[in-house]
């Protein structure tokens, strides 16, 4: 069964077509990677699913049609979002960033702190003064506080130092072992490690959906992503 079904998703902003009818689905209890070169519309797809960008088409979360709902309702119906560039609240403390995100009666701080014990020690530090890696930990931790049907994750390792890439990748692998996830990620090693399916976009549409094994095909990777298999 698919956890998320996206059909004919279109986004137009200021007269330019950013998404031109995107179709794909995400299997429950597995990780699907959304791939493609820069600027093809991966982040916009996530934002349209979340109702942040005005859109048409259809988005179904499990059995439920969420296409026309407001963002906060979509999130409450079971989507966790880890945005590109983190978007944590710089003037709030780490603890405030996390408590802001609490929706469930019993938010799962255990999981968040077991993945990133550092956050507990830094509870009263202003998030704006954290390093990029620590900010990413906050962004991931807050999405894990509530039970969700699916996690939407946008380039979680972008701009991180190598050591932090490993730490964040390990955390994501642990999360992925019992969650449904749609992840945008340039780091193909991480994609291979956690994803079962891939969806490739180009110029606002999906040009390929299939199994992760396609990433072993050098020519495929070069053609769709413009990088060599060994790259990254």
């Amino acid at each position: 069964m698919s956890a998320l079904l996206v059909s004919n998703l279109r986004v137009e902003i200021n007269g330019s077509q950013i998404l031109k009818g995107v179709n794909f689905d995400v299997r429950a209890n597995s990780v699907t990677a959304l791939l493609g070169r820069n600027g093809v519309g991966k982040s916009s797809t996530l934002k349209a699913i979340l109702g942040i960008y005005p859109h048409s088409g259809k988005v179904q979360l499990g059995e439920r049609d969420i296409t026309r709902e407001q963002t906060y309702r979509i999130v409450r119906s079971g989507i966790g979002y880890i945005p590109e560039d983190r978007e944590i609240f710089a003037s709030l403390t780490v603890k405030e960033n996390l408590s802001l995100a609490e929706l469930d009666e019993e938010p799962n701080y255990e999981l968040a702190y077991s993945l990133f014990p550092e956050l507990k020690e830094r509870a009263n530090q202003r998030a704006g003064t954290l390093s990029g890696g620590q900010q990413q930990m906050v962004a991931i931790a807050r999405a894990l506080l509530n039970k969700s049907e699916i996690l939407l994750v946008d380039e979680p390792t972008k701009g991180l130092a190598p050591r932090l890439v490993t730490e964040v990748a390990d955390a994501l692998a642990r999360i992925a072992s019992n969650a449904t996830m749609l992840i945008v990620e340039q780091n193909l090693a991480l994609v291979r490690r956690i994803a079962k399916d891939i969806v490739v976009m180009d110029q606002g549409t999906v040009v390929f959906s299939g199994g992760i094994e396609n990433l072993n095909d050098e020519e495929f990777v070069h053609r769709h992503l413009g990088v060599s298999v060994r790259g990254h």
Partner: protein
Amino acid sequence: MDTFLLIGITGIGLGALYFLVACGLSLIYGLMGVLNFAHGAFLSVGAFAGYWFAVKLFPVTSNLSFALSILVGGIAGGLFALLVEQLVIKRLYNRHIDQALVTVGVSLVAAAMLGGWFGHDPLLLPTPTWWYNAIQIGDAFIPVDRLLYIGVSLLMLILFFVILRFTRIGLVIRAGVENRTMVQALGINVKLAFSTVFFLGGLAAGVGGVLIAGYSGGVSPYFSGTWLIYGFIVVVVGGMGSLGGSALAALLIGISRQYVNYYAPGLGDFVVVILLALVLIFRPQGLLGKVAH
């Protein structure tokens, strides 16, 4: 020395009134991006409600009736603000030009209605007898009303601070000032925060309206105009969305305006404009503002 002190405290008192006008404007703009020209109407509605309450219900002005009329003014300002938000601004989220225009409209309509109801001549707010007294501090005789402005503003500042710092809705407001979209993407209905901010802003403006009516010798439908302009200047100098910034800028502007007006009569407003220009050039996000809008 005594004059110096007198002018200083008067300046702080004036700053306290500016703060009451500005704090709501600042939060409303910081959170929602709404340039709220209706804020002057919140002030007037509060002032007229306070006046009406004091005149109709209390034949003799007492401390109690005066305190209650300030409270009534505040609540009326808050409810009116909430009404404006729900009826008008809510329908125009993210249409900033339309919002600004419609708030101008609201202020004109409100002034016309208040004029129709209460007339256009200034109505003297009944104040207790001690209103015109002065108390001696050092060598200076300080009019008591100045101290009242300062005290009430401090209370309001503390109220706002406690709400922003220690409540859930306050947390949502602070986060929303930084990044409204992300607040919603955390599953939070940010519109509740919008309404709260409108109510609180209207509350402070309503309280300010009653006090300003006392300070400026009466309330009339258009009496809030210049105060609103000063409110906007305070917000810009202090930083949009920053409560502390509004308090700091209000003090700075109130005090410097008073001193300059005393030592160089007539130049007070000029200095405020210079101050505004300097901030816009060298620190466009305002003294304590985080985000440059």
